[in-house]
């Protein structure tokens, strides 16, 4: 399996009033394509910051980050934006759908930033929505959908550019347990289809559905746990 992500001695400091906060303090690991990984830790442990760096939304203070063997330190902001668009799919805790825009257009949104005219956007979006079981909701607004449905729209959106990796930040955090279970099943299905998925969560039951758990505490990986049959 190809190594997608390889980080070494990654640190992230934030300047605060009256000092520097060391959010990440020397993190090293790698993720291969096809993995279903959970990054688990309590709030404030640095797991979200880690995800932001891995997802090219932020840059590390020091250390190296190779994405598919490419050092991201050398990339410009615009190149990082392109990478986010093509290689990464984000799923957020609060869905982050445009509330005045139809479900179909929400799913198509990443196509606006691919850098060329996409002619088959509608078909791709419809196919994606079909895959998450929402082909009957194309022209609804997000606020006409349940939380679980909204998160499935967000997953369809994350998949539209066929990314190398999906980052899901507490994807079930705003959902009731039934919808949460549906969403988790969807991630497992996607994993079986070959997608690489990174779940960021503080919830052990969510994390244990992954095959591998990276336990984060105080800005460091304290345990890299393989789950058999997870």
């Amino acid at each position, binding site marked *: 399996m190809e190594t997608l992500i390889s980080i070494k001695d990654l640190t992230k400091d934030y300047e605060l009033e009256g000092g520097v906060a060391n959010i990440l303090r020397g993190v090293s690991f790698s993720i291969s394509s096809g993995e279903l990984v959970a990054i688990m830790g309590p709030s404030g442990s640095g797991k979200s910051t880690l995800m932001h760096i891995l997802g090219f*939304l932020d840059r590390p203070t020091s250390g190296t980050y190779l994405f598919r063997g490419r050092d991201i330190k050398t990339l410009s902001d615009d190149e990082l*934006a392109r990478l986010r668009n093509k290689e990464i799919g984000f799923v957020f805790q609060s869905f*982050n759908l445009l509330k005045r*825009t139809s479900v179909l*257009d929400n799913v198509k949104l*990443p196509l*606006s*930033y691919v850098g060329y005219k996409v002619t088959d956007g509608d078909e791709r979006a419809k196919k994606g929505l079909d895959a998450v079981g929402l082909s009957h909701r194309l022209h609804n607004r997000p606020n006409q959908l349940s939380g679980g449905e909204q998160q499935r729209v967000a997953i369809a959106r994350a998949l539209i550019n066929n990314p190398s990796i999906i980052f899901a930040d507490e994807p079930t955090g705003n959902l009731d347990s039934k919808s949460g279970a549906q969403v988790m099943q969807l991630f497992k299905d996607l994993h079986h289809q070959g997608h690489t998925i990174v779940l960021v969560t503080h919830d052990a039951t969510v994390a244990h559905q992954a095959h591998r758990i990276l336990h984060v505490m105080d800005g460091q990986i304290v345990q890299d746990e393989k789950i058999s049959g997870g």
Partner: protein
Amino acid sequence: MQIKEIIKTILEGFRANKIRAVLTILGIVIGIGSVIVIMSVGAGAQSLILNQVNSMGTDLIGILPGASDPNGPPATVFGLTITTLKYEDAQALRDRSQAPHNVAVSAYVAGVDTISSIYENLTGNFMGTSAAYPEVENVEVASGRFFTESEEKGLARVAVLGAQMKIDLFGENDPIGQRIKIKRESFEVIGVLAARGSNLLSDTDNRVFVPVLTAEKLVLGIDHLGFIRAKIDDTQNLDAAMDDIRVILRQRHGITNPADDDFSIRSTAQALDVLGQVTDAIRFFLAGIGALSLLVGGVGIMNIMLISVAERTREIGLRKALGARKQDLLVQFLAEASISSLTGGVVGIVGGVAISALIALVAQALGYNWSFVVSPASVILACAVSISIGMIFGYYPAKKASGLDPISALRYE
């Protein structure tokens, strides 16, 4: 991001917040609308004035006593009486061997005094003119006749009434053959002029016309003219005709140095030019004031855009997470501001044109020779201005949006 999606986003925003959308563009609507109305109504008023001058004919040359700068006012404006222009000068200008382009020449003196008929006694304007007056001024005689050249030379006591003067002095009675008095001199009424409508420059209807020498010698007791007008054969010969007149008058007045000229020559064409410039200046000045409200409209757009950027912070963060670059967001927000502003501009143009058309209709219904003018250039300019205003006032909010940090934008509540 394509323009179609941007427009879709704007429409979604408009639908979600209709009152705000209307208020956003209102300033631009008012600004563009008022500039269009001012330019159009100004052009209408201008055409009214210029048509009046034009109706006198652009083939007229005026000769005034006293030297003056051709672009300044004549000396008589300052209340000076200049006596250098004589009846014989007018006679000389009729000599077609020396002034071949002069078709008709009339001498003028004017006065105000008591004018009375058997019915009325009033203070009114009278004018001494040559027999050629109707030809020079394009005036029709409605009844009776105008006086002849021999009556002009023979100090005949005959009078022709302007249309309104006839009504003032005689009411519905036929004045032909009746007598009127100007000052203490008695005149026989021989004709009435067709009504011409008053305009800024002359009021033919409210005057009594008598032979110029009669007016000079018998009524006013002077031997100089107020001015002379010459009608020429063709406007193309204007410069040649003016030169001819200059030569004749210098010769008659014994002037060798042009700086010593004791007369000045003007043409209606020149007057039209100057009037056109003056009225243009007024129009553009007023339009400039109208344009100030555009500035206010621009500030309105900036204000709403700033609010919109703040409200859509999460959306901006999301778009960045999905791959939007800085310039994508800059373009999106600039386009939103410009399109809002352009929408305001288009509504303003439509409203402004409608109001201008209404004003033109009313003016025409009131009998003014008013043309409804909306130049395509002003419409294009208005569109360009409104887009630019959107760009200028949308830039700061757009810059702010594009510079947001995606992580804090995504966390923004």
